[in-house]
C-alpha cells in the first residue's frame, strides 16, 4: 500500500495564528496590487471595446504596427504579443482598442480602423485583388464555381464546395491561417495546377490573417460586470444555505454568559448553529479574493470564462472543507472527552491524505490545461490552478480554525452539548486564545 502520510500528527489548530497571518498577508498583497495599480484588470467582456487577434507570417515589427495604428488615430491602443508554451513564437498579436464613442453606429469602427491600419502598414491596399488569407469559405466556393477551373460546368455539383473546404482547411489547419505562397495550396486535396493558376490570377496574399475579432458595446460590459458580481455572491449564498443546512445545529449547547438574551442572544445562538456554513463560505470568499489578487499580480484579465472558473472554484473549494467538517462531526460523537481543537486536529490529520490526493489530482488536470489548453483558456486555467491550491489550504488553514475560534470565543472549548463544556473552559482560555478570539470576531 503506497501512502502519502503514514500517521500524520500535526497540531493544525496550534498553527492557526500563522495561517491567519499568512492569509492576511496574501489578502493585503492582492488588495494593494489591485488598488495601487489601477484596479482590477477587466477583459473585453466587461470593459467593452474591440479586440483584434492577428497572426503574421513573419515576426511582426511592433513599432511599425504601432505607428500604423497611430495614423488611424488609434495611438492609445494596446498591443500585446501572444506567446504559447508549445509554440514559443507564434507571430501572433492582440490589438485592443478602447470603445471610442457612445454612438451606436460606431460599434465596429475600431475594427475597421485596425484593418485599415494593417492594410496600410503591410502594403495590401495597393493590390486590387482580394486577399486569400481573409477570404471566407462561402466567397471562395462562389468564386470557384464561377471560374470553373476544372471545367465541370453543369456536372460540378458540390465539388467546388468541397474543394473550397479543402483549400480553406489547408490554409487554416496546416498553415495556421496564414499562407505565404499560393503555390503551397498544391498540397491541398483536389487542388491541381489549373485551380492554383486561377487562384494566383485572382487573389493576393496579405502577410497576416485575422484570427479573432471581439467587439463588445460599452453598455453590455457594464451590465455584465454587475451581473457577474451578483451571480458570484448568489453562488456563495447558495453554498452558505446548503452547508449551513447540512451541518445545522451541530453546536447548540447550554448557554454561557455570552449567549445573552433578546435579539443579540438569538443571533449568536443562530450563528452557533450555522457556524460550519459561515466558516466554509468565508474560506471560499477568501479563496476568491486571493485568486483575484494573484490575477492582478500576474497580469491576467478578468473575462467571462474567468468568472466561470471562479464560480467553479466556489463549488470545488467547498469539497475539502466538507470532507473535513464531516469528519469533525463524526469524531465529535466518538471523542466526546477531547477538547474541540484536538478533535479538529485529528479530523484534519485523518483526512489529510485524501484532501491532498483529491486536490492534487484535480490540480494536475488543470495544470495540464494551463500548459497545453491554448491561449484562449489560459486565464481560465490559471484561476483554477491558483484557486485549487488556495482552496485546499483554506479548508484546513481558514475554515476549520474559524470554527474552532468561534467555539472558543463562545466559551466552549469542548463540543457543546456534551455537558463537559465547563470543565474545559479554563483550558480554552489559555495561550493564544485571546488573539484567536479577535480573529473570530472579524
Amino acid at each position, binding site marked *: 500500500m503506497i501512502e502519502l502520510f503514514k500517521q500524520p500528527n500535526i497540531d493544525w489548530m496550534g498553527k492557526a495564528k500563522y495561517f491567519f497571518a499568512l492569509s492576511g498577508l496574501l489578502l493585503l498583497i492582492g488588495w494593494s496590487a489591485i488598488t495601487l495599480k489601477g484596479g482590477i484588470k477587466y477583459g473585453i467582456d466587461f470593459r467593452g471595446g474591440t479586440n483584434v487577434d492577428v497572426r503574421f507570417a513573419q515576426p511582426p515589427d511592433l513599432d511599425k504596427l504601432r505607428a500604423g495604428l497611430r495614423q488611424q488615430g488609434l495611438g492609445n491602443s494596446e498591443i500585446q504579443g501572444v506567446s504559447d508554451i508549445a509554440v514559443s513564437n507564434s507571430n501572433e498579436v492582440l490589438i485592443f482598442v478602447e470603445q471610442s464613442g457612445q454612438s451606436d453606429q460606431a460599434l465596429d469602427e475600431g475594427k475597421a480602423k485596425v484593418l485599415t491600419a494593417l492594410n496600410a502598414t503591410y502594403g495590401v491596399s495597393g493590390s486590387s485583388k482580394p486577399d486569400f488569407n481573409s477570404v471566407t469559405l462561402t466567397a471562395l466556393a462562389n468564386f470557384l464555381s464561377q471560374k470553373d477551373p476544372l471545367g465541370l460546368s453543369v456536372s460540378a455539383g458540390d465539388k467546388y464546395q468541397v474543394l473550397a473546404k479543402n483549400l480553406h482547411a489547408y490554409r487554416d489547419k496546416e498553415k495556421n491561417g496564414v499562407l505565404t505562397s499560393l503555390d503551397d495550396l498544391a498540397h491541398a486535396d483536389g487542388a491541381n495546377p489549373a485551380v492554383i493558376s486561377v487562384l494566383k490570377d485572382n487573389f493576393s496574399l496579405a502577410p497576416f490573417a485575422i484570427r479573432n475579432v471581439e467587439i463588445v458595446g460599452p453598455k453590455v460590459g457594464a451590465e455584465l460586470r454587475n451581473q457577474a458580481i451578483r451571480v458570484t455572491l448568489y453562488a456563495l449564498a447558495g453554498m452558505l444555505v446548503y452547508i449551513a443546512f447540512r451541518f445545522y445545529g451541530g453546536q447548540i449547547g447550554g448557554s454561557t454568559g455570552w449567549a445573552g438574551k433578546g435579539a443579540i442572544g438569538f443571533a449568536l445562538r443562530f450563528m452557533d448553529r450555522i457556524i460550519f456554513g459561515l466558516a466554509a463560505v468565508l474560506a471560499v470568499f477568501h479563496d476568491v479574493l486571493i485568486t483575484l489578487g494573484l490575477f492582478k499580480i500576474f497580469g491576467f484579465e478578468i473575462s467571462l470564462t474567468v468568472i466561470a472558473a471562479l464560480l467553479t472554484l466556489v463549488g470545488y473549494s467547498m469539497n475539502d472543507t466538507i470532507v473535513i467538517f464531516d469528519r469533525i462531526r463524526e469524531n465529535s460523537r466518538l471523542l466526546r472527552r477531547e477538547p474541540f481543537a484536538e478533535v479538529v486536529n485529528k479530523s484534519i490529520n485523518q483526512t489529510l491524505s485524501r484532501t491532498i490526493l483529491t486536490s492534487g489530482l484535480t490540480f*494536475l488536470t488543470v495544470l495540464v490545461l494551463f500548459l497545453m489548453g491554448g491561449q484562449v483558456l489560459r486565464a481560465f486555467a490559471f484561476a483554477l490552478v491558483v484557486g485549487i491550491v488556495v482552496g485546499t489550504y483554506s479548508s484546513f488553514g481558514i475554515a476549520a480554525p474559524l470554527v474552532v475560534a468561534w467555539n472558543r470565543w463562545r466559551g466552549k472549548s469542548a463540543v457543546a452539548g456534551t455537558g463537559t463544556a465547563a470543565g474545559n473552559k479554563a483550558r480554552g482560555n489559555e495561550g493564544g486564545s485571546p488573539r484567536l478570539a479577535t480573529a473570530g470576531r472579524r
Partner: protein
Amino acid sequence: MNPNLKWKVVFIFAVVLICLYSIVGLPTFPTSLTQMRDNFAHQIKLGLDLQGGTHLILQVQVQEAVAQETDQTVDRLTTAMRTKNIHYDEVRRVDDTHVIVRNVSPDQDAQFRDLIHEQFENNWTLGSAPGDPNAVLLTMRPTTISAIQESTMTQSLETIERRINALGLTEPTIQPHGRVGRDNEILVQLPGEGDPAAAKRVIQAGGQLELKLVEDPNTYPSEAAALAAKGGVLPPGTELVQGSSEARSRAGQESGNVWYVLSRSPAVTGRDLRSATESRNTDMPGQWQINFVLSSDAGRNFGRFTEQNIGRQMAVVLEKKVYSAPTIQSRIEDTGRIDGNFSQESAHELAQILRAGALPASIKYLEERTVGPSLGADSVRHGVQASILSLLVVMVFMVFYYRLSGVNAVLALILNLVILLAALAMFGAVLTLPGIAGVILTIGMGVDSNVLVFERIREEIRNGKSSSAAVDAGFDKAFLTIIDTHVTTVVSAVFLFIFGTGPIRGFAVTLTIGLIANVFTAIYVSKTIFQYHLTKMDRQAELSI
C-alpha cells in the same frame, strides 16, 4: 455469481452500449472506422468558438414601435375628431406613450369621451393632464406596451431569420437572448462565416417599402422651401419626404436634394408584396431595377387606387426616401418596379430584403465576435491534447497508487466520459472550448470520488475489517460526502448556466452532466466491479488497494 450482481453487470453493459450507439452509431449504423468518425462529428456538435464563425448580439429598439403606435393614434384621433366635428386646439404626442389633447370645447366633452371610449379604450386610459385644467392626457396601457414590444420582437426575429436564411449559410442560429421582456436582444450565430459584413448589412437594412400618392406636383429644394410654399403649415394628412441620393431622375440628375409632399397614409406597404426580383433596367442601360408583385388582396385595392388617380404621381418610398415618383398612366393591378442607381448586387440584396419583409423597428448591435477558422482548429487541437494528457496523467497515477483498485477507478472514469459524450449527443448540446475544459475538470473531479471511497476502504482495512466488509463500509460512509461535494459544484454550475451565454453555458453543461454521471460510475459501477472481483478472489486474500 449471485443473480443480483449479474443483473447489475447486464445493466452496466446496456448503458455502455446505448451510450456508444448514441455517440458513433447514429445517424447511419457504422460499418467502418471512417463512418464512425463521421458519425462522431455529426453527433457531437462543436460550438462557434471551435468551428469558427460569427456571433452577433443585437437589440431591437422596441420603443420605436411603441412610439409609432402613439404617432398613429394621434393621426387616428385627429381624423376621428374631425369627422365627428369635435373642436379642439391641439392633439400632440408628449412622449412615446402619452398623447395630450388640448381645449376640447366644453359642450362637446361628453361626445369626446364617448369617442375615446368607443375607439381607444382598449389601449389607452384617459386622465387629466398635470398643470393644465383644459387638457386631457391619454396614457398607453402597460398591457398594450408589452403586447407591442412582444410582437415587435417576434416579428423582428422572424424577419431576421428570413433574411439570414436567404443568404444560404449552413445552420445559422437566430434566437432571443437575455432576459425575456426586458432586454429585447437577439443572438445571431453564423457558423463558418468569417466575415460578418454581408450578414450585418442584410440584417440592418430596414426594407420598409411604401407607395404613396404625391399631393403636390411641385418638388422643393429644401424642407424650409416646401414649408414656405405651403404657408408654414403642411396640409393635414401630408408629409415631406426627401428624395434618395441613390435615385436619379430620367435625365440622370441627382435627386438627393429634392423634397416631395406626399400623402401620409400609404396605398401599398412592404407587407403587401408577394415577391420581388431584380432585373436589368430597360430604360437605363447598365443599371438594375427591382420588380415587385403584390398579393391578390393588395392588388385589388391598388387597382382601385390607381384607377381613381390616373394622371397623378405616385412615389415609391423606400426607407423613408423617395426613389422615384412616376405618373400613373393607367390602372395597375399588381406589379410595379423600383428604379434607382442600383448595381446588380445591390438590386439583388434589396430584392431579398423586400421579400423577407421590413423590420418593425430598428436594431442596434451590442456585440460582435468573429472566430477565424484557424483559431477554432487550434483550440480543438489544444483542447483534445490537454484532455488526453490529463486523462493519461490521472490514469497512471491511479493505477500506480491504488494498483488493481486503480484499474477499477480508470474503468469508471472512462465510462464517466463515455456517458458525458453520449449525453451531449442525446441532448444536442454544443461542445465549446470551455466545455472541453469542463470535460477535463470532470476527469480531475471524477476520480476525487474514487479517492474518497478508496481511502475510506483502506482505513476500514487498517481497522481490521475483512475485504468485503471494508468495501461495503467504504462506499457507505463516503456516499454522503460524495453527494455533498457534487451538490456544491453543481450548484455553482447552475448559477453559471443561468448567468452565462454560449461557451460558458457549454462549460456549465458538461461539468454538470459529468458530475451527475460520476455519481453513477464512481459509486454504482465501481462498487459492482469490486463485488465482482470479490466473488472471484480468495476470501482470505488481501484487496489490492
